[in-house]
């Protein structure tokens, strides 16, 4: 539920494209076909596989997903852009989502966000730090409002109770 990140290039040279869905990844996707009555229902899981493999959802992957799931690329793109966790552009090595919704806001989330922007050198929301290390975005309620301020790093590490005081130490874990 983050704001979309507008930076980088949406296209990579076609020659460099190595398909995502081959070998083990393709087998994993095909195993999912057993769990749903339609191939379309495997779309969100397939997009997660792309993002895990490549860090974002490149144009070529949209075509690949469309082909394996027997959908059109336009349809797949329509779904990708609905969900805020799918990146339609490359992001920094570490992608940080900081909750600033009211319950966290009451407990200082905006100060925490400012501290994180400063420590990462990102300066502005949605941009990547000059060293390519971090991208920081605001996210709406992470469902952990009793532990202000929660952050989610790299779609994997959910960290509670981040404050301006402990932010630098937490970020240091992400080289």
């Amino acid at each position, binding site marked *: 539920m983050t704001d979309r990140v507008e930076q980088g290039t949406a296209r990579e040279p076609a020659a460099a494209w190595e398909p995502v869905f081959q070998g083990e990844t393709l087998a994993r996707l095909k195993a999912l076909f057993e769990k749903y009555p339609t191939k*379309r229902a*495997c779309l969100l899981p397939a997009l*997660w596989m792309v993002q895990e493999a490549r860090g974002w959802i490149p144009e070529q992957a949209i075509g690949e997903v469309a082909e394996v799931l027997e959908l059109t690329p336009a349809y797949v793109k*329509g779904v990708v852009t609905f969900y805020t966790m799918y990146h339609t552009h490359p992001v920094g090595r570490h992608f940080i989502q900081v909750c600033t919704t009211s*319950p966290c806001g009451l407990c200082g989330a905006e100060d925490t966000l400012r501290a994180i922007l400063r420590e990462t050198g990102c300066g502005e929301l949605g941009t990547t730090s000059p060293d390519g290390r971090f991208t920081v975005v605001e996210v*709406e309620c*992470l469902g952990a409002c*009793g*532990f202000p301020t929660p952050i989610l790093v790299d779609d994997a590490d*959910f960290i509670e109770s981040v404050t301006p005081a402990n932010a630098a130490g937490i970020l240091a874990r992400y080289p």
Partner: protein
Amino acid sequence: MGYPHPSHPKETVVLSQYFGDAGARSYEGWTRRGGYEGLRKALGMAPDAIVEEVKASGLRGRGGAGFPTGLKWSFMPKGDGKPHYLVCNADESEPGTFKDREIMRWTPHALIEGCAIGAFAIGAEVCYIYIRGEFTEPWNVMTAAVAEAYANGALGTNVFGSGKRIEVILHRGAGAYICGEETALMNSIEGRRGNPRIKPPFPAVAGLFALPTTINNVETLAAVPQIMVRGSAWYKGLCLGNPKSTGTKLISVCGHVQRPGNYEITMGTPMKELIYDMCGGMLPGRTLKAVIPGGSSVPIMTAEEAESCVTDYEGVVAAGSMLGSGGMIVMDDTTDMVYQIWRLAKFYAHESCAQCTQCREGTSWTTRILGRILEGQGTQEDLDLLLDLSHNMTGTTICVLSDSCATPIVSGIRKFRGEFEAYLSGARAPVLAGV
């Protein structure tokens, strides 16, 4: 228990008993704590008898609407020969709510067991649990627990040797509050954009994959095994005088209290005890100003309303709000209500799926008008305009996200008008920079 704090004597600990106890996460640990007895018992009952037992318990949906669970289950067609589905709503994204997360993190098997019983009761062989994409730890814990449940015969083609097939499949969301709305959630599982669907048809007639479907919240389903084991009379007895609201409720308390956390209360517990005794009250030197008791979508209560409120479905309505999801946002006297209401409107504007005009335009315009009030650019007419827009946003759209945005605005202007006036008159300095 008041996770992450120790249990408070005024709590009634049922669902939260093992919060913080990592030993309860494994299949073996769960069975040692009495787990899977409920499922074993249910498998020996007729599906209709399970539905009747849940009806008799008085259990109501914990996802927000409070619809009677047994009654919902009884809407599922019988003998139609079609596949049925159970869907568990683990999208938990309503600001202020963080209880389903703890159920999944600490007692994953309680949820799996509840799903299996629910599926069996409604004639479904498959249950999808839709977990919001950001819940990485609950996802990992649930994934491990589901695998263990299969390995131990609690799920699969022959559950505990009963000959019944029950599958539980985890489905990961990808960032969208609206996917907590039940029909949007079904679209999302189907691989579509998360737009809510027009009802009717209701899910029991045509839900997931256009087949009969029941959808329940995590907390609702986690309560079911307890009802199976201890009986509906026990559950129904857990209330303080109001037989329409029974059982325990996890209240996620956040904001300006000394000890935020998940408190499990008997329905009917005074809100005052919850805030001042269990949560330790306000920070030193501060006083209570307002409470949003049921997640951000319900009316804001004044301190007086909250302090005289009985915490159950009817009690909170009588005090001017709704119990909703039980996500309680507490605000003290340092809170700028106009700013908080603007921030909530901004949340809804960001999360609107934008298919209905009143919601797409209304959430965005109310946010902008509230913003200009905070910039010191508001006019007296803006309050009427906000109320007018809110009126048009209520009861006019496919789902109630639009209404949810209007609710804090209308209740906020009605109950804290003076704070809006202060910005309009210039008595209060702008807090947002104009463009």
